[in-house]
């Protein structure tokens, strides 16, 4: 199975923030959840990958092609949705089709109209009169209507109600039925990722802290709950992060099965996508 995205040691330096050696690969036929708290570097990674912000180091390959050398070809095969609708308020959904139809060689008007009907988006209404959910659905319809092979979505579901979110997730699942397709979905709404992601990549303070298949991750990782004294006495080599509170410590463990074999008396809870994110965002590395 070849990769739709392969990012290697991607770096981007800002005065007050930096992406450091971001690396991950997304195989075709799968959905990757790109998780991190606000300001962790999700949008910066996406913008740097796509050349919207200039990288200071590293390489980006999409569909096995180097981004810098095949920029136009790659861009005609991707659909991107940002957290805010990028179409001007004065336009209508019909105007968007006229514009994008002249930009994308593979623009499919009937398909676009089908999406508009499916999403209940009026063609002639000005975008400024759309609700946030409608704007997001319009962005998604526009991103899907030139038959892309890869969708890159930057928090497409944030600020939307659960009904619209589920509707949008269903569309992503439909898109991924084709084995050649792939989706990179950045979000901090972990329940959405739990529903659809095959792979999870966690980013924290500009660094990738974990990138694995979701099943593997949920199976391997565990959260140990213990007292401060117990924690101090343990060997820390299998620990990832630790949070201390008034009742004791919570520790994220790399391999819970191996740990339980060594310490059968201790309590190790299974992890959820959200608990892993919280352990990285609020805990300290061990």
């Amino acid at each position, binding site marked *: 199975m070849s990769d739709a995205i392969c990012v290697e040691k991607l770096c981007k330096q800002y005065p007050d923030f930096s992406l450091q050696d971001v690396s991950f690969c997304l195989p075709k036929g799968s959905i990757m959840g790109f998780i991190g708290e606000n300001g962790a570097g999700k949008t910066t990674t996406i913008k740097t990958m796509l050349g*919207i912000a200039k990288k200071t180091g590293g390489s980006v390959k999409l569909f096995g092609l180097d981004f810098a050398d095949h920029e136009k*070809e790659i861009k005609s095969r991707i659909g991107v949705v940002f957290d805010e609708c990028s179409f001007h308020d004065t336009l209508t959904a019909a105007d968007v089709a006229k514009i994008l139809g002249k930009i994308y060689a*593979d623009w499919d008007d009937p398909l676009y109209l089908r999406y508009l009907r499916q999403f209940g988006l009026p063609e002639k209404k000005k975008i400024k009169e759309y609700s946030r959910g409608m704007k997001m659905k319009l962005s998604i319809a526009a991103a899907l209507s030139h038959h892309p092979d890869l969708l890159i979505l930057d928090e497409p579901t944030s600020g939307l109600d659960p009904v619209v979110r589920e509707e949008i997730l269903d569309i992503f699942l439909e898109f991924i039925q084709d084995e050649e397709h792939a989706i990179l979905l950045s979000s901090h709404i972990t329940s959405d990722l739990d529903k659809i992601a095959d792979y999870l990549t966690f980013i924290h303070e500009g660094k990738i802290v974990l990138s694995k298949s979701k099943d593997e991750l949920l199976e391997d990782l565990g959260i140990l709950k213990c007292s401060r004294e117990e924690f101090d006495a343990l060997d820390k080599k299998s620990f990832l992060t630790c949070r201390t509170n008034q009742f004791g410590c919570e520790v994220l463990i790399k391999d819970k099965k191996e740990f339980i074999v060594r310490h059968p008396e201790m309590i190790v809870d299974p992890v959820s996508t959200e608990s892993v994110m919280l352990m990285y965002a609020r805990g300290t590395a061990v």
Partner: protein
Amino acid sequence: MKPAFLLPGLMLKDLLNLRPMGKTLLLMFFIFGIIFIPMGNIMTVYFLLMIFAALLPMTSLSMDDLAKWDRYALTMPVTRQEIVRSKYLLMLVFFVIAFLVSGTIAAVMMYLDPSNATPLWFMLLVAALGIFYGACLIPLLYKFGSEKARYLMFVLMIAAGVFLVGWFALFGESFTGDLLPFVLTLDAASIAAVVASYFVSVRIYEKKEF
């Protein structure tokens, strides 16, 4: 697979966006036309037309900023250079339209009242100023963004006004044989300024991050 027409796509986006403003400007033009033309003050109308022509591409740039359009445009199969080029083409289209409308008004006026016809040099002078104004503004908008560049726009507009007033103080309104080559040189300089401005804008835009 049908061929993609990138520039018309981007220009179409601007034209569709500018529809509401275009309507307002058209209305303003008619109102000013009704007031100024019967007064014989046709020159103000030419000046207005050129200002409109320079103003429309600037407005489209501000609208792009507001919608965060550039960030999205860069995910499409479009290069940064093409995005800049589409703005310059848009500006040129508006200037050509403004110039043609000015010419039509002048021709009609000449037919109706040959004694009070507008000299050609005046239209060329106003065109030169308008084009020069646009050439200065686009790189400033790209460099500083529409918010900050708005103030610079007014400073430049005042400078253009001062230039015109100065011109009339020096040469008066009457056409003398020596002025035409001078005005033509100014036009040529303005066109050269547009070309230089395009390359400066491309350089600025290449480095820009969104």
